[in-house]
């Protein structure tokens, strides 16, 4: 037994990178909305990047540590505190048995992820630990977490006591960053000033994920898109408007998708579409002309015209949107979309190598 949920937060679920291989059965992929944040958190605690972790939404939970646990928080800023004292995100932290971790309302963004070293021990359903609540599939009993739920972390193989001592000692590394410094700036930033924590028994690593490799999270993000199959079915002035004006995320938004408000999308002539595939990132235009941005729990097929698709590399930006957020779209080519995706993947691999190097030095 590793953690007990004392307060569940607004909507907290177990997620990994999603359920593949069952779309032909009508089963959505689900998985973390912000895959970068989930993967970074996992990598920071030595997990495979796709291990199961907790996805927090808008208001974070309060957890009790039932044993010493190494964890990391990545994503929106939810002001995490252990026993009242602020703890930093984007780096591994070791808490002691009996301590409480509390997260509040997101100051920016919407979603955050807590990864536990060793992952979360939960039976996979159809090959994944992701929660698809509509069908009560996967995760913790197919539902969001509630007060009283207990989760078990897997074995991590880390010697937590010795790591706490090392991180609390205030020593800073003198060796240069081993990983590809001449190609790219360091993916891990040294925390020169350190975190004052020795007095309360928890410890934070003296390094964290460099902001340079995090997605361009911001208040009014620009989402890059590639054109959808039916983009040419829309009036030219509507396409122009789609690519130049802002849209607002309406309150009718959740893990299935976001209803957007803004420039009307009108077809050149009525279109009777036969159901075809849809995927997270797809932007559909239903008859009322207000676009829908599909997200992780979206249906596998749809009958509305598809005007565009948000590129995978920018889905983490979409994941941080909440009702009232303003967004814009910018068109890129498929090649550029892939280039961004591969660069992002490289960053995560570099991060993993960097973290492993740091852990090995302890």
């Amino acid at each position, binding site marked *: 037994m590793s953690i007990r949920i004392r307060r569940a937060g607004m909507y907290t679920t177990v997620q990994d990178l999603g359920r593949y291989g069952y779309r*032909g059965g009508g089963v959505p992929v689900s998985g973390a909305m912000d895959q970068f944040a989930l993967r970074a958190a996992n990598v920071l605690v030595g997990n495979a990047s796709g291990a199961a972790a907790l996805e927090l939404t808008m208001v974070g939970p309060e957890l009790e540590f039932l044993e010493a646990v190494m964890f990391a928080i990545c994503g929106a800023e939810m002001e995490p505190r252990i026993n009242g004292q602020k703890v930093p995100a984007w780096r591994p932290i070791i808490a002691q048995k009996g301590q409480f971790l509390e997260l509040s309302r997101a100051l920016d963004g919407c979603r955050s992820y807590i990864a536990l070293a060793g992952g979360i021990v939960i039976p996979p359903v159809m090959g994944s630990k992701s929660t698809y609540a509509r069908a009560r599939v996967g995760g913790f009993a197919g539902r969001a977490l509630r007060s009283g739920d207990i989760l078990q972390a897997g074995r991590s193989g880390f010697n937590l006591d010795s790591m706490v001592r090392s991180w609390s000692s205030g020593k800073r590394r003198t060796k240069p960053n081993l990983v590809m410094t001449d*190609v790219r700036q360091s993916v891990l930033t040294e925390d020169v000033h350190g975190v004052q924590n020795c007095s309360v028994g928890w410890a934070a690593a003296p390094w964290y994920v460099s902001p340079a490799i995090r997605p361009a999270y911001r208040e009014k993000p620009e989402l890059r898109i590639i054109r959808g199959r039916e983009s040419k079915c829309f009036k030219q002035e509507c396409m122009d408007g789609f690519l130049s004006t802002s849209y607002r995320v309406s309150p009718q938004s959740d893990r299935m998708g976001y209803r957007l408000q803004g420039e009307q999308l009108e077809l050149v002539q009525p279109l009777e579409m036969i159901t075809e595939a849809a995927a997270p990132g797809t932007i559909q235009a239903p008859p009322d002309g207000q676009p829908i941005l599909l997200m992780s729990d979206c249906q596998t097929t749809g009958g509305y015209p598809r005007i565009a698709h948000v590129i995978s590399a920018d889905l983490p930006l979409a994941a941080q949107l909440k009702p009232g957020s303003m967004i814009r779209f910018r068109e890129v080519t498929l090649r550029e979309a892939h280039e961004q995706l*591969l660069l992002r993947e490289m960053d995560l691999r570099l991060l993993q190598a960097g973290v492993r190097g740091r852990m090995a030095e302890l």
Partner: protein
Amino acid sequence: MYPLGDQAWVMRFGTAISEELYDLVSGFAALIERKPFVGLREVMITYTTVTVYYDPWEIAGGGAALQADGSLRQSASLPTPHCPGAWEQTPTAPGDAVAEYLQGLLEEIGTEQVWAGTEEEAANVIHIPVCYSGEYGPDLQTVAEHHGYSVDEVIELHTNREYRVYMLGFAPGFAYLGGMSEKLYAPRKAVPRVQIPAGSVGIGGLQTGIYPLETPGGWNIIGRTPLAMFRPWDKQPTLLRAGDRVRFVAIGPQEFVRRLEGVMQ
């Protein structure tokens, strides 16, 4: 052929629903599954399309760049920040590589062989027991009255033929069936029901199908099956799969209760 975002290609074989077109679609999907490529995630079909989902990182050979000891080897096939135009010197970009592969499959295997593949597969007819009476079919009377039939005639028209499963979508385990008699046409309800029990068999316009989960819905409910259409505990998580043939079989309420499976609530 068009990209569905940056992790899938869609190949569209036609613009109308027909058994012949569907044979081509399902045949080509089966062909890709017989001849997969590194980085293929899965293949999904609809009435007229085959969607091929892929992993761009795998295709770019990215997996090989991470060494066994965890360190990274600079891979020539990946773009680097200080030469962003690297695609020009490298093997094809992932999207193009997949597209080329799929085009190759199309050309390499003539249409005739794809058709032959489907004929060899045994037709898999699945019998679905349905209780059409009383509380299980609250709209049965409505559908009957719409055409001036008796309830028994409606049941006869629904059960006296085979249906084809064209695809699954909308919800896990929801099968789009083709072949319903036009005589059973019934428009969607003006006011959808808030809760339709899982297993409910409905008619919406010219379509018939089974709700796998309890959801709101606007179809006319004429019966209910005790079988679980979505069964995540099973190795095959959906009772029906694309290409299956289905026949409805009328059963009574007692048999319904006896055969009730772990239906999703």
